[in-house]
């Protein structure tokens, strides 16, 4: 699905992309059912917790709320006091283990009500979600860690684990943080994912 959000674009975007998730409302959990009776309990283990030193200046993946076979992954911006012009998160996972359900805007780069634009697309190839977040011109800087976006996944089967990672970190066609002129401003070690599992 493709989703655009923004106060000026809400109607047009909803119309155009035939959003399957609730356009203008921040994405959402989509089909979060299936827990009762599926027998799978979803879990997510972060590779680098925000309490660890590895999170300094990094973008990390943290476990959010979880219920039955659905788990939320929070993408945290820990690069502080740096003006961010745009964030492109190219996320990869095993599509036989996890299924993307939807998203919720974070606060780190602002919400669509304030002019921040979100483009979220999971139709490029199985096991990939592309998230683009652009605050209004001039960018945005934060002084304490905050969530950029929350993604919701359904874990499809009992599994020992499936990596959740950032594709092509620090490349123009992959995962990157940009300043307001389009220069990539995060090193390749600054992206940490996690592990889906189902029990």
């Amino acid at each position: 699905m493709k989703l655009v959000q923004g106060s000026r674009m809400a109607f047009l975007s909803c119309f155009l992309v035939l959003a399957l998730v609730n356009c203008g409302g921040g994405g959402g959990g989509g089909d979060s059912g299936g827990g009762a009776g599926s027998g799978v309990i979803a879990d997510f283990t972060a590779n680098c917790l925000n309490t660890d030193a590895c999170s300094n200046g990094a973008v990390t993946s943290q476990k959010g709320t979880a219920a039955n076979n659905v788990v939320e992954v929070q993408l945290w911006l820990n690069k502080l006091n740096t003006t961010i012009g745009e964030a492109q998160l190219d996320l990869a996972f095993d599509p036989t283990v996890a299924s993307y359900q939807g998203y919720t805007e974070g606060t780190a780069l602002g919400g669509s009500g304030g002019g921040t634009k979100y483009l979220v697309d999971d139709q490029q190839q199985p096991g990939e979600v592309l998230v683009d977040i652009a605050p209004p011109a001039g960018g945005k800087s934060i002084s304490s860690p905050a969530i950029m976006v929350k993604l919701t996944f359904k874990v499809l089967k009992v599994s020992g684990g499936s990596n959740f990672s950032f594709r092509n970190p620090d490349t123009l066609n992959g995962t990157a943080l940009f300043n307001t002129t389009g220069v990539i401003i995060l090193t390749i070690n600054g992206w940490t994912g996690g592990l889906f599992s189902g029990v």
Partner: protein
Amino acid sequence: MLSSIIKDSHPGRKALRWIFWIGATLLLILLPSAVSAGTIKVAWDPVGDADLAGYKVYYGTTSGLYTSSTTVAKEQTATDLTNLQDCKVYYVAVKAVDANGNESQAFSNEISGMSAPMPATVSPNSAKQATNNQLVTISGTNFDTQARPDFGPDILVNSYAATSCSQMTANITITAAARVNSAPSLPRLLTIINQGGPQGSKSGPFTVLFNELRADIDKSGRVGGRDLLFWQNAFGSVSGDPNYNIDADLNGDGTVDGADLTLLAVWHGHIFF
């Protein structure tokens, strides 16, 4: 073209010297939207004489042999000749008429031309932005041998030739930032201009389509990341503004707005090479 007409229908009275000027170039004063097919608009300089009662405009399909006429009030210096046959060259001349109904002895100079040209269809009827040397065939009526197509400033006409009064060909280049005409954008006006200026237009016979390569604003090979950044940086700007970015104006309408973001969203994540 300037001619003098000597009127001397009342011997003993002073001869009235009427000076007419019928300019073929004045046909250009016609607004395309005001012209319908089968129409020639003629205009002339007014005659400054107290006895003037009006004008009589003569026309026909043979030079010097006028089979039709129309009378025009003295306050008018232009008129439309209507219900003319397509693809026929008409010859037109004017006489002045005084209060007694006497016409000037001589005609004004004669002008000739076909009715205003009118485009109908273009084949192919669409092409993407950034298309070079696209050959198109334009059908319509009243194209003279020098008929020239005009698709707007963002489509370059490299060459053209009228093959008949109802068909012409053209080689065109659609610029990269040409205005997109597919819905909900506005249709494009095609104008055909005959030698000397008569012209006719039609809205919509040719459509410029969005070129998806333009969604990759930064030419990185994939739509996303900096493309959204560049759009955001230019968001709300119009052509001429300091932050206007023609590359972010994906639909070429002179404004970087939500419509451009929509195009970006449609192609978001797409890899071109």
